[in-house]
């Protein structure tokens, strides 16, 4: 597969050839285990201020996703990875819009909802 090394663009997941592929995967595996155990520790710990725990969990999860992208998908910010990186950035943008947009809109609707028991609401609809 000479064309892989000669090409200007890199394929996601490719490019491990010629480098120490096993070492890359082992490094990623090591970091992923550490971050997973840290997540499970953080969920139960009393050492962190309670309201800060979700933030810590989110940071650990994003860090672990980054580890996977770098060490398992072999995506970098190098010039031969521009297409892959742009696609990833757009994907993350859409994911952010869908998740945070839905949560924001639904929280707003909930906050503006008339507080009323369900049976009375049902009667009003008749």
């Amino acid at each position, binding site marked *: *597969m*000479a*064309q*892989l*090394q*000669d*090409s*200007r*663009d*890199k*394929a*996601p*997941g*490719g490019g*491990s*050839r010629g480098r120490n*592929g*096993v070492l890359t*995967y*082992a490094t*990623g*595996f090591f970091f*992923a*285990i550490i971050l*997973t155990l840290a*997540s*499970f520790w*953080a*969920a*139960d710990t009393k050492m962190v201020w309670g309201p800060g725990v*979700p933030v810590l*969990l*989110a940071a*650990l*999860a994003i860090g*672990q*996703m980054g580890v*996977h*992208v770098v060490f*398992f*998908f072999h995506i970098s910010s190098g010039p031969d990875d521009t*297409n*892959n990186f742009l*696609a*990833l950035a*757009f*994907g993350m943008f*859409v*994911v952010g819009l*869908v*998740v945070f*947009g*839905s*949560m924001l809109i*639904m929280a707003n609707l909930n906050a503006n909802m008339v507080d009323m028991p369900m049976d009375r609401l049902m009667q009003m609809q008749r």
Partner: protein
Amino acid sequence: MSLVDALTDTDPADRDDTPISERGPAPVQVVVAFGFWLFLLSDIVLFSALFAAYAVLSGQTAGGPSGPQLFDRTNVLMETGCLLASSFTCGLCTLSFEAHKRGATYLWAAVTFALGVAFLAFELTEFTRMIGNGAGPTRSAFLSAFFTLVGTHGLHVTFGLGWLAVMMAQVATLGFREMVIRRLLCFSLFWHALDIVWIGVFTIVYLGAH
């Protein structure tokens, strides 16, 4: 050598001076992997919709059991370990295949498959336990969202196991061809992507439950 290979097989030193319009088509491997990368990102967008639904509905238990009453952290840690280790062995499998080591390819594929089956076994045990306790998907909006999100991930894993079995059949019958390498690389991308989705699942669904 195919036409594509002939067109793209130039010296990298010359290539840097060639304008982008005169470089010819990208290598097949790059086109295939980039297309599959786009598919994976769209699959992650699909999951993001299910995550959004779960995030919105996670408090709507309709008087039924809530997350912390149902979830078993040890079980989740075992599932996470299985999936993470299978991602690692899947990488070793593709590396062995690229190095034309047939025995190692089968070995790591078998380990990947076994870990994937173990993950599904943990997940199905949890599902049957929950449904047996009256906490099925019809109980509340929270449980509907939970079973949809985690079940869709489980379906992806099941599909991935089928794909892995087909790939091993192709390794046995077709051998070390470029085509098979491309497919195996796509499979490993798929498997790693499922691991990334699972990070979101265990963080938001299981650890974030309150």
